[in-house]
């Protein structure tokens, strides 16, 4: 089962860590990440091993009230 990144199915990176996924996706900076609804601090991207079907959310600064 692939990953779901911001609602879109995305192939699992190799090796399957969040750091490698982000290197492949190159999201616009700055951004922050949640995995399965839990915040993942930047400092542990390299330790964050991804599992089949994980939901990754990448968020950016946006207008807000």
């Amino acid at each position, binding site marked *: 089962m692939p990953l779901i990144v911001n609602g879109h199915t995305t192939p699992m990176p190799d090796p399957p860590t969040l750091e490698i996924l982000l290197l492949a996706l190159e999201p616009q900076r700055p951004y922050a990440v949640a995995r399965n609804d839990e915040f993942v601090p930047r400092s542990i991207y390299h330790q964050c091993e991804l599992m089949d079907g994980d939901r990754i959310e990448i968020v*950016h600064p946006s*207008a807000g*009230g």
Partner: protein
Amino acid sequence: MQDTLTLYGRSFTSRILLGTARYESPALLVDAIKAANPAMVTVALRKQIEGGAKAGESFWQILRTTNRELLPNTAGCNTVKEALNTALMARELFETDFIKLEVIGDEENLQPDPFGLVEAATELVKQGFRVLPYCTDDLVVCRRLLDAGCEVLMPWAAPIGTGQGPRNPRALRELRQRLPDVPLIEDAGLGLPSHACQVMEWGFDGVLINTAVSRAIDPVRMARAFADAVEAGRSAYLAGPMPVQELAVPSTPEIGKPFWDEAARFAVQETT
């Protein structure tokens, strides 16, 4: 001594917090920020929508040029878990401990969920956040938020984006009287500068406005109008308004008015 707004030990000369949403263009937002001269500007976190990368980047780059203190929000969060994780992402991304905490309990009027709010505030304070909770005007809920460690409260005037102005003036004024030392920022539902002026006259410490400015026909002019109104209201509060009287009190002296003979009047009184 300069009159300043102090939030968690940070002093600001402005008493306006300005939202950055719903402007026609980032350029208009920048001009409105210049006109309102806010202490802080609110921001949010969102996933990039298809083809929206450029707009998002432009918003962020242009906002950074304004050099304002940022107040990230947890807008749209319906659960404590969502709010906590949004706050954590915001802290890392915007590099600030300040968070405008929203936990919404009703989708129709975007009313804060007081139970979720207290729970989320308790946890965020423990994690070192400086929490500004968007709350209702209920005194006991406000007390619970203070017990949780919040040093600022942001009670609503009316539902977000409605522009109705203070719906429950009595509750808001009571809140001011009962919590005299807590910075109170009126958040949500203000539509006109007169609404902002009114709450400032009651002794509120500041206002947070967004839609009232961004959806005005001329947002920059409206931003300036709000800045003037907040300043006028604050000055009026500090000046100490006169007590309201039940009966008329002539402002022009009675003594010495023409066609009225004081001596004759007293003479008549003595003979009767």
